[in-house]
């Protein structure tokens, strides 16, 4: 399962422990203030400001709090968390410890994707080593009163369990179904206690920010999307693999670097993201423009966009947790529409109704899965209408 790492990675320059030591030298509020200064936004996809999340958890009144590392990495086309956990696990663990210190938690949990079970043994080894180094356990790095330990829990292959509240349900041994929000995990999380859930990459950047300084991070990227981002690039391009760039580069720039200049479209943000046609390659990859958790899937000129759309819809039909009506039943209807299109039997009128249904699914679904499920469908219909419509009915045999 070797993956090509195509650019130098900052994580290589940051030795384990440096960020952690720097953070523990600060008072707790100063830790959060540093993150705020760096203006780090979550790398799991939603881009929620990390300092704000941590501050809410720090302010929550409870003796017991938790730090959860979201290593469920279920988004189609992303594998950057796997690479990070494989090559730079200490940075992620440092990030969890800094989080624990900042919010006053003594326990961390890594929710590891079921398919990454092979990473478990090495990670357990690292946890054991860190306990000996006093980088886990009681009085971390000699700091009295700061005890913290980390446990690994395995996921079982459901995409929805990457959604933070479903993840927590799964951690508690329940069916992985998203909770009602509010209240949010920072208030009522794992075992009803304040909990921060952060992406693997977010936590690694936290360690880097304390090692290299908030100003270093802040100076990179755009005003609304600071810092660097790891991208997992796959599909019809010459050089698929892992890339690190500052936020805010254009889709076109990225295509040049990965050897995907001739692409007809790029899916940014995985199945939950949107499909960007070549005409819009001057758009930027940033939270304020086209956000992504890291998944970039390139579609060459020969790709049938109807099949692409169908593939994504099939994914959602399969992965919907089935809890709420719009997502459970709606994704099925959208897929049904694509099947009709395939057979040249979808009227324009019905297609418009399905697009309106897609908007309702986005608006009314309970969690991010349902809310983002029609995005690929809607963007492909919008940008590739001519390619999709008017297919001849298949010959009847």
């Amino acid at each position, binding site marked *: 399962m070797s993956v090509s790492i195509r650019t130098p990675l900052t994580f290589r320059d940051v030795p384990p422990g440096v960020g952690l030591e720097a953070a523990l030298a600060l008072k707790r509020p100063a830790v959060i203030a540093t993150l705020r200064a760096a203006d780090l936004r979550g790398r799991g996809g939603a881009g929620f400001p990390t300092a704000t999340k941590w501050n809410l958890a720090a*302010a*929550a*009144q409870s003796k017991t709090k938790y730090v959860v590392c979201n290593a469920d990495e279920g988004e189609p086309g992303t594998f950057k968390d796997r690479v990070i956990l494989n090559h730079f696990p200490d940075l992620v663990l440092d990030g969890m410890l800094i989080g624990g210190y900042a919010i006053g938690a003594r326990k961390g949990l890594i929710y590891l994707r079921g398919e990454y079970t092979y990473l478990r043994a090495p990670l357990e080894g690292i946890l054991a080593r860190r306990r000996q180094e006093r980088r886990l356990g009681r009085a971390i790095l000699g700091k009295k009163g700061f005890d913290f330990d980390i446990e690994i829990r395995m996921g079982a292959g*459901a995409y929805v369990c990457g959604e933070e*509240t*479903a993840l*927590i*349900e799964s951690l*508690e041994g*329940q*069916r992985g*179904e*998203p*909770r*009602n929000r*509010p*209240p949010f995990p920072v*208030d*009522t999380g794992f075992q*009803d206690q304040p909990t921060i859930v952060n992406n693997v990459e977010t936590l690694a950047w936290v360690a880097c920010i304390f090692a290299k300084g908030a100003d270093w991070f802040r100076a990179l990227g755009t005003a609304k999307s600071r810092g660097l981002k790891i991208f997992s690039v796959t599909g019809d391009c010459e050089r698929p693999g892992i890339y690190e760039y500052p936020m805010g580069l254009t889709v076109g720039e990225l295509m040049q670097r990965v050897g995907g200049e001739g692409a007809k479209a790029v899916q940014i943000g995985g199945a939950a993201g949107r499909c960007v046609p070549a005409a819009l390659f001057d758009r930027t990859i940033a939270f304020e423009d086209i956000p992504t958790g890291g998944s970039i899937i390139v579609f060459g000129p020969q790709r049938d966009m109807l099949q692409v759309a169908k593939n994504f819809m099939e994914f959602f*039909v*399969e*992965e*919907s*947790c*089935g*809890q*709420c*009506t*719009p997502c*459970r*039943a*709606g*994704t*099925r*209807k959208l897929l*049904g529409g694509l099947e009709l299109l395939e057979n040249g039997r979808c009227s324009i009128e019905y297609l418009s*109704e399905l697009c*309106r*249904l897609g*908007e*309702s*699914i*986005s*608006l*009314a*679904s*309970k969690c991010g899965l349902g*809310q983002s499920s029609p995005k690929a469908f809607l963007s492909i219909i919008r940008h590739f209408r001519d390619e999709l419509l008017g297919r001849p009915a298949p010959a009847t045999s």
Partner: protein
Amino acid sequence: MSVAPADDAPRAPLSQRVQSVRPQQVPGTLGATVTVTVDGQNLPVPLGTTILEAARQLGIRIPTLCYHEDLCVAGVCRICVVEVEGQATLQAACAYPITAPLVIQPHSRKVRRARRHILDLMLAEHYGDCYACFRNGNCELQSLAKEYGVDEFRFGHVTAPRYPVDRSSYAVVRDMNKCILCRRCVRTCIDLQEVGVLEAVGRGDRTRIATFLDKPLGEVVCINCGQCINRCPTGALRANDPTDEVWNAIDHPTRHVVIQTAPSPRAAIGECFGCEPGTALTFQLNTALRQCGFDRVFDTNFTADLTIIEEGTELLLRLRQALQDKQPVALPLFTSCSPGWVKYLEHFYPEMIPHLSSAKSPQQMFGAVIKTYYARMHDLDPAQIVTVALMPCSAKKFECNRPEMCSSGYKDIDYGLTTRELAQMIQEAGIHLPDLTPSDFDDPFGTATGSGVIFGATGGVMEAAIRSVIELVCGVRIESIFEHADVLPVRGFEGVKYAELDLPAIGPVPPLLAGLFTDWSWLAGARLKVGVCHGTANAHKVLEDIKAGGPFSQCHFIEFMACPGGCLGGGGQPIPTSPAIRAARARAIYAEDTAYEVRKSHENPAIARLYGEFFKDGPGSPLCHELLHTHYTPRGKYIV
């Protein structure tokens, strides 16, 4: 004194609950109120109030399907979505606790369109024909379709059933083709009843409600309480309906068809005819039943009184064994008149079966009396008698089919009808129940007492027992202790109640019990300790308390009812149900009690006659044991 022995946390998964914000968790807002603006109207509400609650206070209707007042919030159907200003997506009003000032559009274009889409999707998945459905006219899905003007199936409609109908249970029929996956039944079964036989399985559009390993409902630990039926918004769950068989018996030339009516259905059946909840139609019902063709109409209260005598005698016998003979004996004694509760105990606490009173429920006692005493009295062939019981309960259907319930050689009760089913029969006979002239019950069981009536409400059996035991043992009038004979400490809807009562004096042994007791001296100075609970989740708490040696382990007598509110909230009662509806039914029941001349079971002259003429050796005698008592099956949780 009230005790809540076990924790109160609901057991449904957290995702199924609204995690209401505890005020102290929002610093600086302790006990605060926030202002919410719904459709332009302002309302200050306590922190944590949901949008739905706020809208209801303002008289603004927001449609709901998965929400139910009795249950924790799920937030899954999404029909209640509203627009919250400043939020990109719509929010479920039922599941959104207000923690900051909010401006809400409950009916904006986006909202209306989303709701209609959600309805369209539900209907696309829903297989069922309204005119061939028992919920026709009383279905939440159907009425929403009307409310939102659904005039076509925009996203298609399933045209063939996807699931076989499960008719394996004596009590509950499951037709998952009509299920909209609101999960009210799941929450009812696990939260309200702590039984948990239903669960969502599968993912995406393969999600469905299933039993353990997809076993038929008749083979799992379902206690037949029917609470899930009462809360299902559609016709996916219904009771096993024997209406056709009952009509057949009525139409049969030689069958003598006898019906008994329990107090709870009488206080609720009006709801099926458009009356306000709490309208008692006891005597109009008698007229209707005769018009339908029943040969005799009896009052279950008669055997409720009989139950009190038999069960009270059993209690006194056990107390004597404990207090005078100092012999080990299973105390506290548990009531046994709720068949849902009995099955719950058989499944979940089989080791505690010795505590269960051996007295049959009033329904079954009546059947046994009718097919023996009554048959002999009227020179009828018991084989020609068909006994029907109008009950608020679906578990009664299971109970009357228990193999041990035929000690006379004939089935005690042939058919159990729910309130809903009988209302249907009455409608079918062209009768508008509320308009009828009242008429009395038939002799020889015509006379009943108020004590029998209150069996329908939680605490009622205990109150009836206390009225009789005190008078029979102490030789004083109960009114000298409780004004108007209202034993208030055991009344009310609190989930678990506990009461202690000093015996004020010791009287002579009354003639009825003279065969069993010579004196009450061993009861001198005793303090009677009793407990009452309703809903099997509360039964669970009490049983755990007993096992842990808590206050309930010291009780002498505990009343258990499987259904929330007692029988008046039974699984066969009119749909919908809510705390307010159950309270109204309770008021009707207690009002009926007050109206009776005789309000104590042991003063019922017909009971005295029954013992005088038939059970001549008195309560607890071998003949009583043969006909009026039963035994139980330790079922455990094993599934074959």
